[in-house]
């Protein structure tokens, strides 16, 4: 692996970018599963729109990650990923692109948080997952738009406009379900309680987070935790819901150790590239 400090910084920037890109893609993919199956037409359309935003953000981030990758010297580039098909391409000296990063890596190369790969389950679980993630994403991007890396800053600024709407959408649904019927109240409380254990990881700094924060590229995520909690609490209050009390937090996604769900998601998502490799679509 890279020994040159400059290369190490580049590697951390790559991992940092992939963390964000993978969150966006996996979240967008999950939300896109609702398309055509929503509880009411307007929400079907809204959710597809949000899914599109996430996948669009993922594309910008993967394009940047690919350019970082392609800029790493050829010897170090060989060891960036565990996935065979991607490494074959790299070792042939070929440049990689956004699709290679999305479609040729296996789960152990993905750096998204466990939260976003959790299944949709039902409307309440989907809303709970989005609410936790959107609240984080909004605060994270608000800081990130001041990144010293101009590409990251530009992507953050553009994404923030969309995420502002995502957060409004998921907060409104938390309130609607919490302060709706007895059944919806119970369902959303259960979903919030169940998905709570995946929120700790959002604030767990990886080596990439630490290195990028030190460079002025990233965000001190421990600093936004309190704001996140306050934001969540205030919406839950309005929704007449309680903040979950669980203390045990699941972790591993950011360190590329995933739940069983991601493998199936990727098997489906990457099917075409695996069955019909090396083709233009």
């Amino acid at each position, binding site marked *: 692996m890279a020994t040159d400090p400059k290369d190490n910084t580049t590697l951390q920037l790559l991992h940092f970018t992939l963390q964000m890109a993978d969150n966006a*893609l996996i979240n967008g*993919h999950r939300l*896109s*599963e609702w*398309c*055509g*199956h*929503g*509880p*009411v*037409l*307007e*929400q*079907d*359309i809204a959710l*597809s*729109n949000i*899914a*599109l935003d996430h*996948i*669009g953000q*993922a*594309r910008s981030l*993967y394009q940047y990650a690919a350019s970082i990758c392609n800029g790493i010297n050829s010897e170090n580039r060989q060891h960036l990923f565990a996935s065979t098909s991607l490494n074959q391409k790299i070792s042939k000296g070929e440049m990689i692109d*956004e*699709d290679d990063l*999305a*479609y040729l890596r296996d789960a152990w190369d993905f750096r998204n948080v466990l939260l976003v790969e959790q299944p949709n389950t*039902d*409307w309440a679980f989907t809303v709970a997952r989005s609410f936790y993630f959107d609240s984080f994403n909004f605060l994270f991007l608000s800081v990130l738009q001041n990144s010293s890396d101009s590409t990251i800053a530009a992507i953050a600024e553009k994404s923030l406009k969309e995420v502002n709407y995502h957060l409004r959408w998921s907060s409104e649904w938390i*309130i*609607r*379900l919490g*302060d*709706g*019927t007895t*059944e*919806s109240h119970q*369902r959303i409380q259960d979903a919030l309680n169940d998905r709570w254990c995946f929120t700790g990881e959002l604030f767990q700094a990886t080596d990439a987070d630490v290195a990028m924060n030190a460079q002025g590229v990233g965000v001190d995520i421990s600093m936004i935790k309190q704001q996140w909690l306050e934001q969540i609490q205030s919406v839950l209050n309005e929704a007449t819901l309680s903040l979950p009390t669980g203390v045990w937090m699941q972790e591993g996604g950011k360190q590329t150790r995933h739940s069983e769900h991601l493998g199936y998601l990727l098997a*489906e*998502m990457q*099917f*075409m*590239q695996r069955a*019909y490799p090396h*083709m*233009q*679509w």
Partner: protein
Amino acid sequence: MTTKSFQEHFDKQIENEVSIEPRDWMPDDYRKTLIRQISQHAHSEIVGMLPEGNWITRAPSLRRKCVLLAKVQDEGGHGLYLYSAAETLGISRDEMIEQLHSGKAKYSSIFNYPTITWADMGAIGWLVDGAAIMNQVPLCRTSYGPYARAMVRVCKEESFHQRQGYEIMMTLANGTEVQKKMAQDALNRWWWPSIMMFGPSDADSPHTVQSMKWRIKRFSNDELRQKFIDVTVEQAKLIGLTVPDPDLKWNEATGHYDFGKINWDEFWNVVKGNGPCNKERLQARQKAWNDGAWVRDAAVAHAQKRKFKETPKSKSEAA
């Protein structure tokens, strides 16, 4: 005015190409025909989200994934405009959905065919949306105002959908052997169902004469079908694909393509529910609706609570 003079006024508006608006008097059968046609059209958009939605999670590139998702989302939007247009005729969206789920209302039979490969996304955009455009462009001038206006927007988006479908086919046709095979296979499966989309031949189309008189319809099924075939055969040639009809032949005398016999038995069987995916499509719609019942109930309950909370406040503000 007497019923007779109402009728005369209506006839005159139709004659003078003045659009009929929701508050205008209209014959009961005109209203019923429009409700049947617009709701069927709306249902087709919604059910039509399923066969393509089937490939969103498996699209072969991020760009294709985004385009497909945006396209299927557009179809949902079309459903929304069309349900709204139908609602102006005095039927609620819930009633229409109930008619879809009970099987009373129909939707386009084409969506009862399965999407087996990625090339089907190309074939649907190119052929199914292409056929839909042929049907729908004249509807921009249909006599009922809200329907005509909804169709203007729908047609703009459909023409983009048709191009994206053709572009998928073109990419495959210019690709590797297996991609070409995939494209040809999709054309083989979607060609005949697509030309059946224009409905039965004029002689067997029970509603055509009256609908043309009311200027709901502007061209007959057979006229539109012929127009579609003439255009599409040339597009297939351009990308080196073969239309699966051995009897297809350019006719110098008529200036149109002659084509083979359509299997109307298959058409009526799919209409009656015996298509490969009729059951799955309807079950998927029913499931989405039933699973979403508690969500819709919660939204209504919350809106009522909010209204109740806000009412005394606005009163005190007024005081």
